[in-house]
């Protein structure tokens, strides 16, 4: 930890006393953020506020990829002040989701914000007269245009959300995505649940398809606040689990993409290839999504020699089958014609909206927490990342998945070798009574889930209990990428674009 006059510098999964974070004036805060955002090595990983009697305390976390550090900035809006702040979104578009959330939850007016429309209609929102039924859709008055509304319930077995297409004939002029249907009050529940075990299960349910990504972000945050060391072996096992989750979902996504371009063969084969991955997770911890595997300070399900052997066998069987099927799919002209130049974004667009994960890597932005702010085993053993996919279209998003699966397989094999050189076994999870959070502390925990960067921020109060738990799923940024991808496409291209991003509704709505 390092304090300058303006901010505190933390490493990923490090904590500091809340009192150490200097509170600066909003104009200094504003200037500093604008200054940092001119450097592409910086991006905002979280920006939120916490109310108390004195006022609203804002915390902004700016990740510096070049030095593997995160600057924590803070400003305060005291209760006697007018709830008005100059909008950052006007200068840096990536801030729109944060300011919309702050406006919705606390009734802050961001001056010059282009449009602070509601984000998710949270239960604790400031203005309860705004309801999900009267969402202010963007409209263009014209006799020649028509609107197509889809959802909240969609055709398939997927989560709910509303998509409103403004169309000129077959072409989409504008797609607006309205979410909030999945809001379960997750962040508030973190504070009302009395045990860490309950919170752990809650974290695994933030997005059921990212059980390990969010679970790992949660336990790392608690371990940072509680000064709990986790053994190198445990770190290796956690990284293996995270990469298995990535492989499982990516293969499933490739199957889903095949469905949308009417390639039934590819869909069936990729679908069948997903099964052994999640069945391996079940063999390991009893659950196909890896629930109950990630626990604070240890695990109930250590990776035994027998499990390592079956992991090797699984990879040896999976890899050639996957490689052949992927080659076949990417070589197929009928697939290429539906993937290439469909739903492309420029690198400038992805940068502007603050895209993370696959949605950044489809455009040559190498942004990847595993590399820039390494955690778990990624500190000891680096994973290969790439920035040579640049087209930003459906093809790029499919190709990112293929390359990430290949990289994950290589990486897991490396970790297996490292594992066999450690002869200890992972510890049991720390008993509830032995977990004591440092009072009055702040921590930030970043992981790279299969969708991209996950950020959990936790604050403890003077009694050592959680006083704020803030979750950010990568989808928060990336939904805008889907909306932009649809511009000037035919509406029939929506499904394949949607699948190519496969964003989380519940991760966004919380």
């Amino acid at each position: 930890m390092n304090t300058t006059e303006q901010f505190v510098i933390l490493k990923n999964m490090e904590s500091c006393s809340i009192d150490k974070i200097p509170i600066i004036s909003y104009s200094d805060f504003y200037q500093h953020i604008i200054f940092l955002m001119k450097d592409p090595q910086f991006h905002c990983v979280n920006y939120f506020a916490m109310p108390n009697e004195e006022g609203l305390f804002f915390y902004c976390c700016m990740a510096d990829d070049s030095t593997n550090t995160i600057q924590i900035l803070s400003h305060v809006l005291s209760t006697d002040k007018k709830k008005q702040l100059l909008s950052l979104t006007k200068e840096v578009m990536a801030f729109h989701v944060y300011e919309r959330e702050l406006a919705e939850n606390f009734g802050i007016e961001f001056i010059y914000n282009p449009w602070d429309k509601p984000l998710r209609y949270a239960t604790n929102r400031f203005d309860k007269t705004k309801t999900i039924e009267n969402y202010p859709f963007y409209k263009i008055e014209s006799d020649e245009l028509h609107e197509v509304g889809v959802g909240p319930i969609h055709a398939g077995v997927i989560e709910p959300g509303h998509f409103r297409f403004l169309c000129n004939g077959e072409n989409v002029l504008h797609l607006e995505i309205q979410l909030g249907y999945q809001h379960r009050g997750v962040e508030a529940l973190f504070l009302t649940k009395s045990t860490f075990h309950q919170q752990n299960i809650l974290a695994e349910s933030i997005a059921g398809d990212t059980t390990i990504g969010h679970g790992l972000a949660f336990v790392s945050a608690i371990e940072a606040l509680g000064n709990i060391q986790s053994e190198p072996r445990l770190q290796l096992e956690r990284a293996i689990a995270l990469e298995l989750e990535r492989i499982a979902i990516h293969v499933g996504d490739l199957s889903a993409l095949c469905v949308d371009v009417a390639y039934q063969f590819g869909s069936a084969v990729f679908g069948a290839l997903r099964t052994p991955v999640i069945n391996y997770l079940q063999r390991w911890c009893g659950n196909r999504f890896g629930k109950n595997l990630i626990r604070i300070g240890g695990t109930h399900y250590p990776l035994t020699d027998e499990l390592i052997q079956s992991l090797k066998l699984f990879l040896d069987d999976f890899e050639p089958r996957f490689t052949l099927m992927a080659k076949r799919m990417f070589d197929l002209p009928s697939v290429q014609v539906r993937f290439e130049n469909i739903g492309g974004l420029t690198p400038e667009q992805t940068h502007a909206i603050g895209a993370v994960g696959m949605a950044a890597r489809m455009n040559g932005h190498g942004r990847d927490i595993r590399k820039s702010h390494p955690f778990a085993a990624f500190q000891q053993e680096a994973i290969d990342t790439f920035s040579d996919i640049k087209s930003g279209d459906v093809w790029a998003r499919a190709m990112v998945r293929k390359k990430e699966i290949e990289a994950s397989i290589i990486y897991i094999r490396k970790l297996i070798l490292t594992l066999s050189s450690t002869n200890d076994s992972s510890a049991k999870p720390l008993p509830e009574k032995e977990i004591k959070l440092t009072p009055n502390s702040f921590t930030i925990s970043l992981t790279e889930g299969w969708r991209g960067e996950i950020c959990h921020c936790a604050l403890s109060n003077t009694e050592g209990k959680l006083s704020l738990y803030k979750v950010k799923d990568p989808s928060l940024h990336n939904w805008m990428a889907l909306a932009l991808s649809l511009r000037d496409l035919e509406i029939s291209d929506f499904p394949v674009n949607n699948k190519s991003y496969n964003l989380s509704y519940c991760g966004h709505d919380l």
Partner: protein
Amino acid sequence: MIIEEIKIQKQHGKQFIKDLATQPVPGPFKGRPEISFEKVDDSKVVDLCPTNAITANPLRIDLGKCVFCGECSLAFPNKIRFTTDYRLATNDRNKLIIQEGETGPIHLNEAKIRKEIQSLFGRSLKLRQISAAGANADEAELNACGNVNFDMGRYGIEFLASPRHCDGIVITGPISVNMAEAVQICYDAVPDPKIIILVGTDAISGGIFEGSPALDRSFLDKYPIDLFIPGNPPHPLTFVNGVLDLIRKRK
């Protein structure tokens, strides 16, 4: 290249599971729990449970509330043991409450199955799935029910897009305030006779989200539920077997 495709087909082989009722599941899978008569401090077991699924005197586990984290059986292995029996579905909410000494499989209450269900839906059941704040694990497993492995389509069970073409709804998730109206509209759009299936602990009881002010579960108070399918998320085998037990006479 066609050669490649033949090679892939050969590797792919036959993927479908022949008998969904007897297929073993690997690993420390947590299915139906069994509670022994061993004397333990009940209150300690109760305190371990994150979702108040365990109640004392005598010790019982409510599978409608259980998130299958296994903390109880890890701490008291001789008292509570999770078997790999994945056939957990029933139409009787009380049958989800496992008592001390109970070892038999969970059945449906035949008397509670409406007459028309088996005659109308026995060979063809089309369902509208509604994710009402479901976290996408339950949904992923429901999608898996139709994949090449579990292939529930062979029994005429299928998820469709339009509620007008369906015979019932399948709800996942604890039902958020923001989804409550959509659930009602969708249910109303399904023609009679129709069934309601709740999939996953979140749908049956709210699970870990129980008590959140962001939920509105009043829809469930209005109608009888035809099938409860517990799990976090339920295994595809739990879903397919449960539905088959509801719509067909099975051994």
